[in-house]
């Protein structure tokens, strides 16, 4: 199994969710995140005082999938989160040792 982590633009979350649902991915965890990459931040002005906001708001999506689904899901996230402008985010994949469903105690792929 693999953990897919995607940090994307907040307004693309719904597109990604819709795409993954249509592929039969039944769950994801979403959290609000802040950070910067090549996009860096933006500036705000209050009464002439300029403030640089270094961290840009992003959404972090986490999904655990079977090994064979990994490439397909990563491609789906990338294509549905893409706008082509700077700041679209990143997706990375981490191996997962095991997963347990809390309610039933099922382990591994059965718990997904």
């Amino acid at each position, binding site marked *: 199994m693999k953990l897919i982590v995607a940090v994307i633009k907040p307004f693309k979350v719904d597109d990604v969710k819709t795409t993954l649902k249509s592929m039969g991915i039944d769950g994801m965890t979403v959290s609000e995140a802040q950070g910067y990459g090549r996009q860096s931040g933006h500036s*705000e*002005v*209050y*009464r*002439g*005082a300029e*403030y640089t906001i270094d961290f840009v708001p992003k959404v972090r999506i986490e999904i655990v999938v079977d090994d064979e689904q990994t490439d397909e899901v990563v491609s789906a996230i990338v294509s549905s989160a893409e706008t082509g402008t700077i700041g679209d985010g990143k997706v990375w994949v981490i191996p997962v040792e095991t997963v347990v469903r809390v309610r039933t105690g099922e382990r591994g792929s059965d718990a997904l």
Partner: protein
Amino acid sequence: MNTVDTMWVLVSAALVLFMTPGLALFYGGMVRSKNVLSVMMNNLVAMSLVTILWVLIAGSLAFGTDLGGGLIGGFSLAGFANIGNELPGFHGVMASPMSILVYQMMFAIITAALISGGTVDRIKFPAFVLLISVWLLLVYSPIAHWVFSPEGWLAKLGVLDFAGGTVVEITSGFSTLAVVLVLGKRSGWPKDQMAPHSVPLSLLGVGILWFGWFGFNAGSSLAMNSVAVHAFVNTQCAAAAGLLGWLIFEKVKESYPTTLGAASGAVAGMVAITPCAGFVTPMAALLIGLLGGLVCAMAVRIKFRFRYDDSLDVLGVHGVGGLVGMVLLGLLATKSVNAAGANGLFTGGGFHFFGVELLAALVVMVFSFSATWVIAKVIDLTIGLRVTPEEEFTGLDLSQHAESAYSMGGMGRISS
């Protein structure tokens, strides 16, 4: 006693009192979330302390029988006892004398509260309490006597100040400058991020200030007459024009018109019209408001060059706006609006009236700055004005009041 005039003064007094919680919201939104309660508390405590001191003695120092030379009122009204049928010098004013005293109390409250806009994020709460108490007796009451009491020396010179361009605006601006020079700048200013934590809170505050300002200006006629109506209309005109003036400056200078700029412009316009409200035409009020907005938008940027941390621009908006108003009153006042007024330099009057307006502005500037500087210095050398660096970092809400403005749940509540 005239019942209608008295009713108008009492209603106006309530409107002016409402400005102080409005100011608390305006200022509260502009500070960081760790210092919201502290600045609101400064405003709240001004409502308490100034009321008590005003009834006991400060009101009498301002409006009591003059002790000589028009410098200070005596003790004749102390405790609001033995007020009699009219306040000393207020001949022909038909509103109840006690209604005028309580109306003027509300002016003292908001002027004291304004100082908190400069001292946010770093003043010790007990030091603020002591500061505004002493300042009320030694700075505010004398100035109010000079200008607002007909027995005051500036009033006798022919100085006109309808609702407090000197007494409230210039006094608060230059008193604040004095305090912040003694207090020092916030650690990290101007390099660190100190952006407003809630602009919507500030916008709500400005709405309340705008509403209350009708009592502040139109109530200053102390009678329900055409001067009150002019002051009311002029307040609205100047607020509108000030808002636009500030936005024009931002659009031209920085390319974005901001909501905080719009709100600040409305306040700047109303500050500028304050001394003029019952003495000028609505057309003049539009011009005064517009210039107030433009000039104050420039003035709030000066602190970055001279490196004094007037955090929420009490000098830039109230001090400078008050000066703009006093100068323009000397130019644009007209007896066609108020027979008891004067004609300005551009409206058929002579240099004398223009000169006394400038003199009053200058005297109030110099006196409020120097006297407040001495008071702040003495407090700093005795109990200390400033919190410790650690308390400042933690935030004054927690370090001075053991509270937090916003409880967002967090780990402390995960099991409930």
